[in-house]
Structures are given as structure tokens and as C-alpha cells.
């Protein structure tokens, strides 16, 4: 068989290009939800198994593909006469080669199977030795947000501590998460800490994970759950032990009261409210640069807080029926169908991780939630509670039930942000 | 040419005795059914009754397919064909039941029931 230099050159360049691909695509493996950038033992174990599968399949690929390429080049009929040449030997196969290859494939698979089995058991539940040290929380999926419950943090008179959309956990300690849902299937996925497990109706699923260091982690619902599945996100914040304890203590307190000095007048906060497009980006570059710092900053009352406005907002919150769905512990709001807002001001996100919790975003959300997150239950109503709209007898959303104008919204925003 | 002539039929069918065979099989089937009904009232161990019932209905099952449905008299290929479906279906049912009996698959609604039962047992 003849080899033409041009052919060889072509093959070499393509091979090189293939090998260079990872370099070109380097940027494609890092991001807030990268599964390569592992931050805990569960994710690490899973990545290890993935690496084994990569080694084995790449090895098999290079062998098989190499032979395939070689055969194609070597036996290609390159001219009319070669095509019309007498037919080659009509061989039918070779049982030894075939059996040998079957054996080799099985051997390759065993290499994958062993670490797979080990990791299945390891990732299933907190290892026996550390079980006593594990921290337990419940995560509940709802269309389209997450509720986090702390069964071991009981608050006098109001049951367990409940928060929404941001799960705060202790770092360096295994966390066992019971997964529940109140409607359809959702899935709990924080790629840097571990693979996902679904929240299945009528099933008591659980997973465990551990953040080795304090950090701010992105999570997202990974099972299609209806119209707004794409924007059902959440965060996990891991804190050092004493920070965590302090956080818990603050969270267990009822909502903050802000006392307005007698006779003070409200000054409407003047943030930019140029209308934003649907699906406008939710995050600022500042926030992305150091999310954990941003989170920490949110824990303290704002310096330029307008106490009059806050109290105005607090009144509006009740008048506008927000209280039918939301709970604000200590402020007479005890709705159960929506995120608990008792310490809403201390969260970095809004509308299930979709937007950064800053004033313009919150304003947008309160004035027109459906524009921010189409079909959301605050707009459509949930469990028989009317939302911003009520349905006519054909089920069409027609009649406005809650309307919040610009001035009112500024007051409510101020109020919600005061809830640290 | 078209309709078969009547004369040549007789020697083609030596199996006229099948009438009696079929009646006998039907009788056996009826008897087994009777036994099954009695069985469930007998004070035997539950596993024993369950397995006997399974065996008995299997016997009935096989009698119908092999005699009434002629598998015994037909080419084996028919048997193979049917058993592909039967075996896969049986395997799938078994796998499903195994999965759903496993601890992880106990639904939350049933967990409540089991907890209740456990509490009742503890109270006793």
C-alpha cells in the first residue's frame, strides 16, 4: 500500500487539532456550576469515577479509532482501476479475534465497574464514622422555588426554622439533606458540592454533601418542573462553625422592628428604574467578583435605611394581601405558600436565585412579577390563594387582584430590605 | 381445486380423541381451581400457601397453553415465540416488585402506616 504524504499530513494536523481542543476549550470547564471545580468529598468521589470512565473510554477510542482510520486509509481504492480491480479475498471473519476483543472489552469495563460500585455506596449516605457529626436539614421543592427547613432549630411558638432559596450550612461538616417536594418532581443540584438527587413526590429521598471550606455555591433545579423550571435556582452558603452559629441565632429571632423618629418624613429612595427587558441579566459584576463577601454585607442593616418608609411598607405588606402567602415572623404575617420573608433582607437572591437582591430588582419583582418570572405562583395564585391575578371561570388570568404602584413598591422594597 | 374434498379428511385426523382429552383437561382445571379456593382457608404458613397457589396457577397456565392452545402439537417455534414475551414480562414484573419492596422505595404514605403499625405493636 502506498501512503501519500498529503494524506499523512492531513491526518497529523487533524490529530493535533483534536489534541489541542482541550486547550481551546479550557474556558468551558470552569464556572459557578462546574463539576470539575469540586469543593467537597462527594463531588470529588463522583469526579474520580468520571475520570476513570474518561481514561478507559479514551484508551479504547484511540485504539479502535486508530485501527479504523488506518484500515480506511490503507484499503481505500484510490483510482478507477483500483475500484474495478478483482475483488479481494471474501473472508468471513475470525472467531479468535472476535472472542479476544469481547474479553478485552469486558476487562475494560471491570476497570470502570469497581470504582463505580465503591462510589455508589460512598455517595449514598454519610459514612458511618461521621454520622454523629452530620448536620441535618430538609430541602423542599415547590413550583418554582426552594424551601429549607432546619428540623433541629426549633423556635418557641413557631416550630422549626424555615428559610427560602438560600441554604446556609456549616462548612467542614457532612450535611444530610432530606429531599421533599410539595408538588411535582424537582431536583437538588449543587454541582461543586455533589451530584443531584430528585425530590420525588411521595418518596423520602435524601442526599449528603459537605463543603470543605466556607463558600458561596450555585445550585439549580435539574428536573423539568413546568413553565419556569429554567429559573428555579438556589444558593448554598457554607460558613465556618461560629459564623454558622451566629447566623442561626439571628435567623431564629423574629423580624426586625424599625422605629421611626416622631415627625420624620419619608424620602423616596431614588434608584434607577428604567424598565428592563424580560430575562434581563440578574447579576452585577461586583456581585460576581466575590459573592460570599456580598452575602456577608447583606447581613447588616443598611446605613441609609428610611425608617418611615419601612413602616409604610410594613403596613402595605399587610394591606396588599402579601401576608396571605408570606410569613414574616413577629410582624403578623404567617402565610405558608410562599418563601418565608422574616429575614429576607439578609438574602443575596430574589425570586429563587434568579435575581440579585438589590432594590431595583426587588422593585421590578413586586410591581410586575410575571415579567420577571413568567407563570410564577405569586402572580397566578397558589393553593387557592389569589395572587396578583385571579382567574375567570375559563381559567384565564384576567382580573387584577393585587396592584402595586411605583410609590408603594418603593416602600415595600424598603421594608423587605430592612428584614435582616 | 378450491374446497378440499370431503373424502380425504378422515385419515388426516387421527386425533379425534382430543375431544375426550380436552374435556378431561377442563375437568382438571376446574378441580385445581376448587383446590385453590379451599387452600386459602387452610391454617398453613403463609409462604406455603402463596407458593402453592403460584405453582397451581402455573400448572393451569401451562395446561391451557400447551393443550388448549396446541403448543404441544405445534412447531416448537410457536412456544419459543410466546416464551420470549412471557419470560421478559415475568422478569420485568419480578424486577419491578423487587425494586418496590426495597426499603428505599417505601412511599411516604406507607411509611406513615408502617410507623403506626410499629407503634401499635410496641404498645402490645
Amino acid at each position: 500500500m502506498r501512503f501519500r504524504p498529503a494524506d499523512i499530513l492531513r491526518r497529523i494536523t487533524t490529530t493535533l487539532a483534536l489534541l489541542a481542543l482541550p486547550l481551546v476549550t479550557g474556558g468551558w470547564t470552569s464556572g459557578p456550576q462546574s463539576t470539575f471545580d469540586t469543593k467537597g468529598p462527594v463531588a470529588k468521589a463522583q469526579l474520580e469515577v468520571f475520570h476513570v470512565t474518561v481514561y478507559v473510554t479514551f484508551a479504547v477510542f484511540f485504539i479502535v479509532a486508530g485501527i479504523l482510520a488506518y484500515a480506511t486509509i490503507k484499503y481505500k481504492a484510490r483510482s478507477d482501476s483500483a475500484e474495478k480491480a478483482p475483488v479481494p479475498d471474501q473472508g468471513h471473519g475470525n472467531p479468535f479475534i472476535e472472542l479476544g476483543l469481547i474479553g478485552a472489552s469486558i476487562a475494560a469495563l471491570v476497570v470502570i465497574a469497581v470504582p463505580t460500585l465503591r462510589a455508589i455506596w460512598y455517595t449514598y449516605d454519610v459514612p458511618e464514622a461521621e454520622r454523629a457529626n452530620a448536620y441535618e436539614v430538609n430541602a423542599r421543592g415547590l413550583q418554582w422555588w426552594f424551601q429549607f427547613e432546619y428540623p433541629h432549630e426549633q423556635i418557641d411558638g413557631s416550630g422549626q426554622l424555615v428559610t427560602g432559596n438560600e441554604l446556609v450550612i456549616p462548612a467542614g461538616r457532612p450535611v444530610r439533606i432530606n429531599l421533599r417536594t410539595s408538588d411535582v418532581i424537582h431536583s437538588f443540584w449543587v454541582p461543586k458540592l455533589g451530584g443531584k438527587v430528585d425530590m420525588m413526590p411521595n418518596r423520602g429521598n435524601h442526599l449528603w454533601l459537605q463543603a470543605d471550606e466556607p463558600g458561596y455555591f450555585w445550585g439549580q433545579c435539574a428536573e423539568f418542573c413546568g413553565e419556569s423550571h429554567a429559573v428555579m435556582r438556589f444558593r448554598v452558603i457554607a460558613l465556618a462553625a461560629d459564623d454558622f452559629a451566629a447566623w442561626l441565632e439571628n435567623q431564629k429571632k423574629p423580624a426586625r422592628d424599625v422605629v421611626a423618629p416622631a415627625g420624620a418624613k419619608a424620602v423616596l429612595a431614588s434608584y434607577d428604574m428604567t424598565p428592563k427587558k424580560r430575562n434581563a441579566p440578574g447579576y452585577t459584576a461586583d456581585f460576581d467578583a466575590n459573592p460570599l463577601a456580598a452575602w456577608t454585607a447583606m447581613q447588616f442593616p443598611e446605613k441609609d435605611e428610611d425608617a418611615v418608609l419601612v413602616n409604610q411598607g410594613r403596613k402595605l405588606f399587610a394591606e396588599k394581601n402579601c401576608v396571605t402567602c408570606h410569613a414574616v415572623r413577629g410582624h403578623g404575617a404567617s402565610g405558608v405558600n410562599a418563601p418565608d420573608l422574616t429575614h429576607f433582607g439578609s438574602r443575596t437572591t430574589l425570586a429563587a436565585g434568579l435575581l440579585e437582591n438589590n432594590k431595583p430588582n426587588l422593585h421590578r419583582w413586586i410591581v410586575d412579577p410575571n415579567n420577571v418570572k413568567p407563570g410564577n405562583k405569586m402572580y397566578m395564585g397558589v393553593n387557592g390563594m389569589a395572587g396578583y391575578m385571579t382567574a375567570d371561570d375559563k381559567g384565564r388570568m384576567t382580573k387584577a387582584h393585587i396592584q402595586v404602584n411605583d410609590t408603594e413598591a418603593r416602600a415595600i422594597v424598603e421594608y423587605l430590605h430592612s428584614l435582616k | 381445486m378450491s374446497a378440499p374434498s370431503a373424502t380425504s379428511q378422515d385419515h388426516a385426523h387421527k386425533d379425534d380423541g382430543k375431544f375426550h382429552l380436552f374435556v378431561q383437561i377442563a375437568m382438571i382445571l376446574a378441580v385445581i381451581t376448587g383446590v385453590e379456593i379451599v387452600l386459602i382457608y387452610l391454617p398453613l404458613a403463609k409462604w406455603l400457601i402463596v407458593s402453592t397457589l403460584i405453582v397451581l396457577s402455573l400448572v393451569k397456565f401451562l395446561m391451557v397453553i400447551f393443550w388448549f392452545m396446541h403448543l404441544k402439537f405445534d412447531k416448537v417455534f410457536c412456544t419459543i415465540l410466546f416464551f420470549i414475551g412471557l419470560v421478559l414480562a415475568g422478569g420485568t414484573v419480578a424486577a419491578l416488585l423487587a425494586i418496590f419492596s426495597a426499603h428505599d422505595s417505601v412511599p411516604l404514605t406507607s411509611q406513615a402506616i408502617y410507623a403506626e403499625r410499629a407503634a401499635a405493636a410496641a404498645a402490645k
Partner: protein
Amino acid sequence: MSAHAGTIDHHHDHTTTTGIPNKKLFMWAFLASDCMFFGALISTHVIYRLHPTPDGADPLKLFSIELTSFSTFILLMSSLLMALAVGASQKGKVEATRQMLLGTIFFGLIFLGCQVYEFTHFVHLGLTLKSDMFGATFYTLTGTHGVHVAIGVLWLVMMYIRTFKPADASKSWFIRAVIQFAAFAVATVSSMVVMLAVTHAGAEHGYDLAALGAGVTHSLPATIAFVASSVVLIALSRSTWAVDFGEANAIDVESMGLYWHFVDIVWIVIFTVVYLFEYL
């Protein structure tokens, strides 16, 4: 024609590669598929029985083992008649085939009647599709089986009518066939109505002649329809012409028989799994 014209070998069709007639092979493949079908249904039922809902109905309070045993027996006997019908058709005995088919239809209808009775009885006791999970899986499983039986009966009736098709293709026979079919339908429905009325009357005042009378008078239109359609059926049950049906059609009867027997063995499984196991 060729030497083997005249006899038909029912188990081996020399015009096919394997010698198995196409229709038979088709039916066996279909039944293999149907195994999966009922496998999935039965699994659903058993899984929900393994994990019952807290407020579910108690099957033991509903079931009547006598009724179920009776209908099981009926179905077994219909299988026997079906097997005999196949035998008769293979011997080219049109009259005997018709009788056996009628017998099978009759038993099939009794089975269906029992099921209709059972269902109305259960509904009476409060078990419906919606009432709880047991209702859902029970009715769906046994109902699907019942639909299979009903399709089988429909098929049997069509085959029965088919045996009257005249050999002379130009004879306009279709209208007659439709009438015969309609008469069957009317007779079936009306007889079920009458029977339900009678059993209801019986349940209230005890089963005696008076109850029979009360039932019949309560459903007078149905009784009249039943009598009339029966007369039509009997009148149509004789053919004076040479019929097209013959030994060559035995394979049609046989594959129908396979279907019928299969429905029977599915019931064997249901009887054990759905009914008997509940008693343990």
C-alpha cells in the same frame, strides 16, 4: 392442482417457510406482546397493594369468592368449548362449529355479566375508580381484562356470522350480516339489563319467582327487546345456501381461539393474584 390439495394440514402450512400458518404466527407474536401488557398492569396493581393508602378500601369486605369462582369456572368452560370449536372447524363441520361458537359466546357473556354485576355491586358499596387507589387499580386491571373478553365476544360473533357468508359472492349478504350483528348486540345488552333488574329485585326481596317477575316487569322494554332479538337470531341461524366457510377457515377460528384462551389464562393469573392473595 398439486398432490396435497384435498387435505389441509392444520399445524403445517406448506406455503410458508416454517410451515406455521401466518395467522397463527401473528397471533402468537401478539400474545407475547400482550404478556408485557398485562405484566405492566398487574405490576401496577400489586405495587399499590404492597403500599396501600391509609384510607383505602378493604378488599375482603367487597369480594365474594363464590361469584369469582363461578365466573372463573365459566371462563374455563368457555375455553373448553372454544377448543372444541377449533376442532370442529378443522374437520369442516360448519354446524358443529356454529354451535360451539355460540356456546363460547354464551359463556363469555355470562362471564361479562358476572363482571358487570360485580362492578355495580362494588360501586354500590362505595368502591369507584375515584374512591381510592384500590378502586383505580382493581377496576382498571379487571376492566381491561373484561374489555379483552368483550373484544373476544365481538370477534366470536363476527366469526359466527361469517359462517353464513354464501359461497356465491354476488349474493347480497351484507345487510343480513348487519342485521344479525345488531340482533346480537340488542340481545346481549337487553339480557344484561333484565338480569341486573332481576338480581336487584332478588337482593331486595329474596330470590324467588316473585323477584323474577318483578325484575322482568321492571325492565319490560328490555325483556321485549330480548325476546324479539332472540327470535330474529333464531330465524337467521339457518342457512339454506352453500356457504363459503370451510376447512380453509379453520385457521381463522384457531387464531381466534388462541386469543380467547390467552384471555382465559390472564384470568387465571388475576384470579390468584388479585382475588385469592387478598384472603391470606
